[in-house]
């Protein structure tokens, strides 16, 4: 892997990490909103929607964080 390719991968990982955090926070907000709902169906919808956002955001954050650790090690060794 060339240095440019490595830097591009680091850039992508940083972008994904930022997106992951953003989506994760919104997932948490939707979960908090369950407290303001009235019916069971609404609570379940908020729960599922919030969990989906948390899974997507959390997944993006975790994957990109792992990538960043690996890529930073490679970058130092170059």
């Amino acid at each position, binding site marked *: 892997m060339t240095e440019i390719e490595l830097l591009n991968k680091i850039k992508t990982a940083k*972008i994904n990490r930022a*997106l992951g955090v953003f989506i994760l926070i919104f997932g948490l907000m939707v979960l908090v909103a369950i407290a303001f709902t009235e019916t069971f169906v609404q609570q379940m919808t908020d729960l599922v929607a919030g969990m989906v956002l948390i899974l997507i955001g959390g997944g993006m954050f975790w994957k990109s964080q792992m990538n960043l650790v690996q890529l930073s090690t490679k970058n130092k060794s170059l």
Partner: protein
Amino acid sequence: MLAGIDYFIVIAYIVGMLLLGLYFKKFVNTSEDYFLGGKSLPFWAIGMSIVVSDIGALDFVGVSGQAYRYGVSVGNFDWVGSVPAMLLAAFIFIPYFWRGGMYTIPEYLGRRYNKSVRTIASATWILFFALDLGVLFWASAVLLNVLMGWPIWISILSTAGVVGLYTYFGGITAVIMTDVVQMIIMFVGGFALVFLGLHAVGGWENMVEKISTMGPEYQSHFDIIQPSDTTSPFPWTGILFGLTFVMANAYMIGNQSIVQRCLTAKNEWHAKASMIFGSALKMFIPILVLFPGLMAVVVHPDLADGDQALPMMIKSILPPGLVGLMFAAFFAGLMSSVDSLLNSTATLFTKDIYEPFIKKGASDKHYLKVGQITTLILLIFGVATSPISSDFPGIYVAIQTFMSYFQGPLFAILLLGIFWKRTTQWGGLSALIIGIAFAVFLNVFKEHFFHIEDPFLYISWWSFLVGFVINIVVSLCTKKHSEKELQGLVFNAKIVTENTSI
């Protein structure tokens, strides 16, 4: 007006978008970073961004409204009106543009035909995009005014401040990545709305039965193909010839704000895959935007304006939290449309007007600065012209309609330019000018030629056909290009990567 948790979510979304957009500033060092994201973006992000740019907030509301009025036939715009064109773009056109290292569609037209074609095409896009900006700023302000109770001018300035800052600093990377967030939230909220909507109307079959018995005007609500003599704007002839053959292709292949996204891909595979992934996502859009419109027929049967269908469904069906999230996605849809226009117009001006006519051969930093300053000027222009929308409420439809008239002739010269070596610079130029003039003529005298209320699909088809024929006739009468001049610009030839002279 929103309240409590939903209000908080909308505010958090706006602030979060600003911070996220500003974060991308650190990835912009050259003009290529600013206009093409350093050619390093992955297909999934570009695919999502294409879908979000295509279906902005105004379209979201508009399509639901049309589903409320005319039924499922409006879904044609996202199925036959998008998917085949996106696949054609992915496999035929995008690889040529990407390998050619192009920034704009007019740049290709300039290389294939001549400088005049490039300038006319570019100037027309710039004009339309700049006019659209004011309309979108006004629409954003009205949305914020209704939801949050903010005064109109505060709403306009805050929208311009947020979008302007992240587009000015982050360039197209910020534009695309903020679209990714918007798409995920729009899909999650949209599916939640469909699920709860179906629950409210007692299931799909119950909804079909109820709508079918509501009166004669609802008889064809579930016919995806409408007869050619229908009074709705979607007869099958218009859908097939105007939409599938012309407008869809012109939009997916010839629209700068769409194609520019594919040019940001890290390699040719990602450029192609972005369109294919986008087309897969597009197939879900009718479910998200069309179904709520249909459900609103049952839940809110007496709406005076069909465009109220979606906002009313969101308000009455979604639970707290998701209401805020969906309205935030609406607002983000408007922001996405504005940031796309800002960045694409800056690219068109810098690459097609400034670089060839005002200052050739300047440093890369200079062009980066020009792009940023153009973004700033456009922002000010958009804010200054936004009140026009309040004086002329039909201006958005008028701009969109005229834009569609330009797309027929543009697609005719793009198609012949790629597939027919014999087409010449004079053929392309005359086809563009006469095609646009013919579209304007048909629009002015539309009552004499068409019996439907808005014949834009037919006008696109006929202006495309006239442009196509004119291009062939004039090309056959004028001197053809040499093989060397066509190198890398026509089908089956390899595209040259350096900037050849026009």
